[in-house]
């Protein structure tokens, strides 16, 4: 037998399901640890997409519980429109089955692989079928399915199907069991936190092994679902053009006008002329070389950019800021939404935000959060075009130090929305290096960087003043004391210095000759009227300048003095007491007050 015959006996088609069984990493199931995140991510993406299409404010419930040893059950439940019973097995039990693959608009999921891949993964690791409950309206009952995938055929296999009572009037619930671990728990929480930042209209509650978490909704605005558009002449390939042309019984020019976005009568005629084809010929009759020429003409002709505003749904600057403020405590947050742009005929839009200070970690690399179509990208940060755009910026010119990534208490958020996000792989972890996208990211961040710089320099100025005040009020007295000790002279009075270099109202408390001395010195350069509050065990009954008010009894008094001071003047009172307790000034801008409290010491 010839070798070719022998080989021929081994040659046969491969099922998609079988292919992915071998290549789990392509779908983000490379390790049991990652499986949890990928599954939650796929289920959450689907739930949010479904709610968005139905104009419902999403209410998501996620539970992760240990069934035994390393077997976990993941439950994700939404209040979306539900799935009609006939479709349920296909949506969850067939790879590459979905509603959005053929539409040109922004959506989280696209190909219809994600959740069925999770079903497949469950089947491979535990053999347990996936349970799906779905209900489409209050008038219909909920249906409960047990689904598996017939791997060789890539077809769903319904193991069980029954009607069940359910407290939700509409929505979908999925329960998947597989071998995994919770080592990535922190990352899972991060994923949901980030998801909640860019989906401020969603409420997500989570229970991990009985521990509850809640990511609350901050916006009650339902997101306008983006509309599907026709393909753009610059973003089409030969195969697709061939399929489209063959399927419509229209003359060529009509076909171009109706089948593509931004093509009018004039452009259509122009295309026909360039391709050397008659506008009145039926589109379905164009084949072979003619088709190639038609494609070349479509790409050569000038066509306005596709309508980004229609098919994309940016989050918007205000909502990004709201979302970030909800999940992070920061001193500065700013967001930018760039105008829509086009790459290879696909409309896209970049949004970015920068946060600074607050409770962000002051050391180490900045936090970089990447999103594509409102989905956080959790892995392969280094391979992503967003990361490259961030590292190739000169952050030093905005007052941020940098070692590749910027360093310091900084948060950088970048969202790329597109009808077709150019991912580097099917696991959707990183965006490919497309110059147009990188440029938009850079422009957005540079714009925000300038705002940040303004904020930082303003903050530095106030900080410098504070620093000065601290030096003079706290350290200078110690220098004076030490210098006096060394030179064996009396301690010099430093008040002239205080007055000269500072523009503050200084309130001091110290012990002097067995008494407590409170003094105020007005260096503000303007007169001030204010109240001094002393909340302590001291009733200040023998005060040399009597208070206007004394309340309290037992060991706790509130003593108030009313003071009016001209610039450069001093005020004081002395009384017997402990010198402890709270001391404050009210009635003057707190930024102009410096309290030096040495009452409790010595």
């Amino acid at each position: 037998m010839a070798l070719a015959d022998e080989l021929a006996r081994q040659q046969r088609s491969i099922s998609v399901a079988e292919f992915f069984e071998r290549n789990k990493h392509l779908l983000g199931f490379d390790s049991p640890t990652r499986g949890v995140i990928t599954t939650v991510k796929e289920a959450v993406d689907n739930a949010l997409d479904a709610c968005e299409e139905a104009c419902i404010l999403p209410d998501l419930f996620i539970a992760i519980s240990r069934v035994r040893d390393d077997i976990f059950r993941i439950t994700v439940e939404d209040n979306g429109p539900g799935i009609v019973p006939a479709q349920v097995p296909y949506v969850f039990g067939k790879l590459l089955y979905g509603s959005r693959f053929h539409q040109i608009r922004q959506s989280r999921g696209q190909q219809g692989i994600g959740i069925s891949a999770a079903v497949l993964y469950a089947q491979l690791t535990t053999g347990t079928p996936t349970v799906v409950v779905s209900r489409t309206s209050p008038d219909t009952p909920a249906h409960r399915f047990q689904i598996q995938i017939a791997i060789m055929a890539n077809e769903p296999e319904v193991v069980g199907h029954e009607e069940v009572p359910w407290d939700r009037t509409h929505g979908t619930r999925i329960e998947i069991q597989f071998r995994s671990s919770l080592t990535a728990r922190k990352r899972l929480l991060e994923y949901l936190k980030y998801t909640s930042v860019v989906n401020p209209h969603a409420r997500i509650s989570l229970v991990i092994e009985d521990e509850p978490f809640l990511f609350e909704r901050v916006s009650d605005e339902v997101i306008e679902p983006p509309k599907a558009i026709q393909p753009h002449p610059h973003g089409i390939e030969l195969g697709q053009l061939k399929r489209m042309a063959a399927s419509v019984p229209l003359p060529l020019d009509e076909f171009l006008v109706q089948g593509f976005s931004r093509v009018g009568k004039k452009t259509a005629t122009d295309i026909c002329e360039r391709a050397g084809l008659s506008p009145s010929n039926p589109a379905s009759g164009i084949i072979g070389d003619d088709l190639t020429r038609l494609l070349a003409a479509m790409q050569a002709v000038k066509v306005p950019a596709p309508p980004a505003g229609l098919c994309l749904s940016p989050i918007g600057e205000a909502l990004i800021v709201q979302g970030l403020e909800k999940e992070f405590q920061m001193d500065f947050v700013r967001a930018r939404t760039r105008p829509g742009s086009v790459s290879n005929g696909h409309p896209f839009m970049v949004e970015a935000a920068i946060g600074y200070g607050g409770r962000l970690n002051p050391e180490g690399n900045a936090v970089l959060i990447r999103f594509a179509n409102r989905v956080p990208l959790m892995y392969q940060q280094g391979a992503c075009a967003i990361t490259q755009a961030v590292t190739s910026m000169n952050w030093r010119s905005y007052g941020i130090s940098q070692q590749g990534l910027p360093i310091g208490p900084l948060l950088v958020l970048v969202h790329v929305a597109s009808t077709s996000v150019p991912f580097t792989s099917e696991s959707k972890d990183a965006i490919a290096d497309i110059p147009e996208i990188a440029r938009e990211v850079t422009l957005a961040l540079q714009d925000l960087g300038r705002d940040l710089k303004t904020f930082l320099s303003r903050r530095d100025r106030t900080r410098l003043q504070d620093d000065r005040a601290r030096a003079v009020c706290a350290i200078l007295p110690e220098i004076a004391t030490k210098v006096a000790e060394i030179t064996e002279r009396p301690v010099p009075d430093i008040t002239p210095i205080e007055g000269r270099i500072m523009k503050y109202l200084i309130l001091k408390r110290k012990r002097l000759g067995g008494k407590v001395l409170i003094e105020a010195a007005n260096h503000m350069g303007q007169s001030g009227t204010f109240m001094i509050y002393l909340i302590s065990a001291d009733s200040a009954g023998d005060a040399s300048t009597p208070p206007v008010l004394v309340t309290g009894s037992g060991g706790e008094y509130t003593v108030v003095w009313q003071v009016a001071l001209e610039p450069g003047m001093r005020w004081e009172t002395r009384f017997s007491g402990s010198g402890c307790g709270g001391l404050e000034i009210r009635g003057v801008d707190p930024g102009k007050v410096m309290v030096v409290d040495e009452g409790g010491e010595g």
Partner: protein
Amino acid sequence: MAKADLDASALTRLLGIAGKWYDQIVAGEVPSIVLPTRTKRNIEYDDTTEVWKYGDRESIRTAGTAKSALHLLRMAFVIGFLKQQINENRSSTLRELYYISEGWRRAKFGAQDESNLLIEDLEILTDLQREAFHLRPEEDGATIFGPIRIRESTRRGVREIHCRDDVGEAGYQIPTNTENLDLLDHDARMVVAVETGGMYARLIENGFDEEYSAVLVHLKGQPARSTRRLLHRINDQFQVPIVVFTDGDPWSYRIFASVAYGAIKSAHISEILATPRAQFVGVQPSDIRDYDLPSDHLTERDVAALNAELADPRFASEYWHDQIKLQLQMNLKSEQQAFAARGLDFVTREYLPARLSAMGVI
């Protein structure tokens, strides 16, 4: 200067700093100090002493910011401590000073670098060396071996030591305060200051000191003040030429520069530490080429250091520019022990005799 006089002037000058601050405070001024800027750009060649010293650039530190105020507060504490130490005739090491600051609350030093720098500031302000404050560095263990006789005043009496006949194979250990040393006599034609311990031991083992009447000094990398001070004194008192033998890389040229011209950090005392007539033996970049020495490629940091040296006033001579440019062009560096590739005797039989006669030392 007699010890009592030295103590008195140290006290006067230290207290003078504190007294100036006191007067400033009384006058309603923020206390301040003025110091020369301590950078490469602010060192200048001094024609009379033939060494590099600080130039005219000065920076003022006033207690008007928290950082500078803290610096002045620490300086006040250090002055207070030194005053007591000098009065009580005690002494301490730089490390001990750092630990003593533990009790100074806010004025406590964060690291020993900070206290060392502050002492250097005080040296500049008082125009005295730290020994005058009764402060000494840690023992750094640099050694000397060869036909020279010295007298050391130790706490246990005066010792006369011949640095070859009275010591072991490792040599005589240079004390931290060389002011307690008297140089008595010698039988040396030259002093060879060697960077690495391996080469120092090789020269001793091969008997280079006896054959060529050479005094060998182990620099131990970037040499300590005491080592540089001793080289200066030998050259000054006995008129014996000093030659420096290091690795062939940019960092080693800086070792030579600090021996010959002074270091940037201690430019305020260059004239007593530096030996301007010291000569560089090698390894020269041209040696790497001529002797085909085993070598490594330059790293990025090496290249940056070489380029910095091209801009360093201490290397502004035709010889150094030619050598450095040659090295950048070859992109190679070699260690002094690379001569071993041609046999253990090569360096003492061939290289040094040839190089030293070319330099006119022998």
